């Protein structure tokens, strides 16, 4: 059931916030041992909150648009009084004294936070395997990754543990796991959603967004979390339009750009087939397909890894064992510098260290111009590609990922192979544009495939309209994940 349907049922009195909360906690209990989507499940808090929401309803108080809907937050978003670890050893035991703006806004909209989900450490990764707490598994095939870095949130939604979850997306970390888990993932325009309380990875790229089953739910969730926030200097004062009203199903005459030359090498044939079928579906609904060129999109990955690591090396300097987080055991004669160095070496995992090192190098004297400045210039060229294209089309369509979900361990030893997963997703972060992934088919092995639309800056309306129109004509998003369903239907006597 979608979040919209759930909240309507609670409002009508067909069920209660407590009953809905209990049902989802039960499902988490059954599936979590196999899926490992959560770092923390806040069952008691959630039930207490659901009881207070039921009491509000009984008292006839005004109810929020997400009244009674269970939600999960990626564990890099601060929740007051609830551990927030970024799946890093360096933040084990950290309990934030404040809420991220998105947490405050979700609760103000009536949502019930049921837990914090697993991620690649500090959101650095594409498989959720870089978690100090162990990997999350894909609910469609437990031997495969859910993608990443918001793999816990994507798996939790796909497996029906929660109808809605938040992820963060720096190079595809919402859209790629959404595609690999068969759900919807939306990265809003940079500045649309406050980053206050989100643990910073690459501040010019990071953006928070929804993971849901339907585009309608993504619109509902973005409406709850979006809009200006004085606590985030990069939060935009652009008005949030009526997103639900935008979902008219009308795409007649809408121009969809397809960058054919960019879809060549390394894309799985099943993905290309599903992508082409999706375009045909949209054309049949009245959209016009337009061939476009994005000459610099192929440089997205190198540009991304130079800029993201440079920003990360600066952002992660704060983890020094002084004010919070892991501190090494201090021995006699240890200096302050030794404390910093050993605390950081013990606290960070391999991928985080790799990125801090790369970022430090490209910002260092003598290399800045050749790497960082050059990457920033190519970033401008990529932005110009999209500006040019959006003069003639309304959205750009690509597959979300080049392959379906890969096996655990398959790409962990080769960082570049792992990075190439993000070939189609990094452009939206580098340009700041909004982008969404929707389910558009299955591979022969019944693994989900994602279709990505990228829209104009602050034009989530068109983006959501086309994605919703596509869902009206397809049923991929209503399919249940095979492995999770098998676990739910397992006789109680089995271990």
């Amino acid at each position: 059931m979608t979040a919209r349907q759930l909240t309507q049922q609670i409002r009508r009195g067909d069920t209660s916030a407590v009953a809905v909360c209990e049902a989802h906690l039960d499902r988490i209990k059954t599936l979590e041992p196999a899926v490992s989507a959560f770092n923390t499940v806040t069952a008691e808090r959630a039930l207490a909150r659901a009881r207070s929401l039921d009491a509000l309803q009984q008292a006839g108080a005004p109810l929020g648009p997400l009244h009674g809907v269970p939600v999960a937050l990626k564990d890099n978003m601060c929740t007051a009084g609830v551990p927030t670890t970024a799946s890093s050893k360096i933040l084990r035991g950290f309990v934030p004294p404040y809420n991220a703006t998105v947490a405050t806004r979700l609760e103000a909209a009536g949502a019930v936070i049921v837990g914090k989900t697993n991620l690649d450490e500090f959101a650095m990764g594409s498989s959720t395997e870089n978690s100090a707490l162990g990997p999350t598994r894909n609910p469609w095939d437990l031997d495969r990754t859910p993608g990443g870095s918001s793999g816990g949130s994507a798996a939790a939604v796909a497996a029906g543990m929660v109808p809605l979850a938040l992820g963060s997306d720096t190079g595809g970390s919402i859209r790629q796991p959404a595609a690999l888990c068969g759900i919807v993932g939306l990265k809003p325009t940079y500045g649309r959603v406050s980053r206050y309380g989100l643990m910073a990875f690459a501040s010019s790229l990071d953006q928070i967004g929804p993971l849901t089953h339907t585009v309608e739910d993504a619109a509902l969730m973005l409406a709850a979390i979006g809009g200006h926030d004085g606590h985030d200097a990069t939060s935009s004062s652009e008005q949030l339009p009526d997103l639900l009203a935008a979902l008219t199903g009308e795409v007649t005459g809408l121009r969809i750009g397809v960058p054919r030359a960019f879809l060549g090498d390394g894309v799985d044939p099943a993905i290309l087939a599903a992508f082409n079928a999706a375009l045909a579906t949209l054309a049949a609904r009245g959209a016009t397909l337009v061939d476009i060129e994005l000459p610099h999109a192929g440089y997205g990955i190198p540009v991304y890894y130079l800029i993201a690591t440079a920003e990360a090396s600066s952002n992660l300097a704060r983890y020094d064992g002084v004010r919070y987080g892991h501190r090494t055991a201090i021995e006699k004669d240890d200096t302050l510098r030794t404390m910093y160095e050993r605390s950081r070496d013990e606290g960070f995992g391999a991928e985080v260290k790799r990125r801090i090192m790369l970022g430090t190098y490209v910002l260092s004297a003598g290399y800045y111009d050749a790497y960082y400045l050059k990457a920033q210039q190519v970033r401008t060229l990529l932005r110009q590609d999209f500006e040019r294209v959006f003069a003639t089309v309304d959205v750009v369509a690509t597959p979300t990922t080049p392959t379906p979900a890969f096996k655990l361990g398959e790409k962990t030893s080769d960082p570049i192979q792992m990075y190439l997963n993000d070939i189609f997703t990094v452009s939206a972060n580098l340009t700041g544009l909004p982008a969404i992934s929707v389910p558009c088919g299955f591979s022969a092995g019944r693994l989900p495939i994602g279709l990505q639309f990228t829209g104009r800056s602050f034009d989530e309306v068109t983006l959501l309209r086309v994605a919703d129109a596509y869902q009206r004509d397809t049923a991929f998003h209503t399919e249940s994940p095979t492995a999770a369903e098998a676990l739910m239907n397992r006789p109680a006597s089995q271990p």
Partner: protein
Amino acid sequence: MSTLTQQDVKRIAELARLELTTDELDLFTRQLGGILTYVEQINALDTTGVVPTSHVLNRPVDRPDVPEPSLSREDLLANAPDAAREAGLFKVPRVIG
């Protein structure tokens, strides 16, 4: 083609305040060299005169300088690995002998 030496990696680790093990030093020298070679493909592009993008939003973000309530000292010290809570201070190893 990047030619990153183990000495380079050691220097970067020092700048980044990371105390790497010998194994990490070997692994990172190999992997960072590979990643740098991969990203150097952007050198094929002529970017003469292209203005760099440091950020996609180029708007003023000024606001009036009005003090607002912030978190309490007690709350901020609650997560400290070592602190003199009564005095309201974080504790670190001795800096001056």
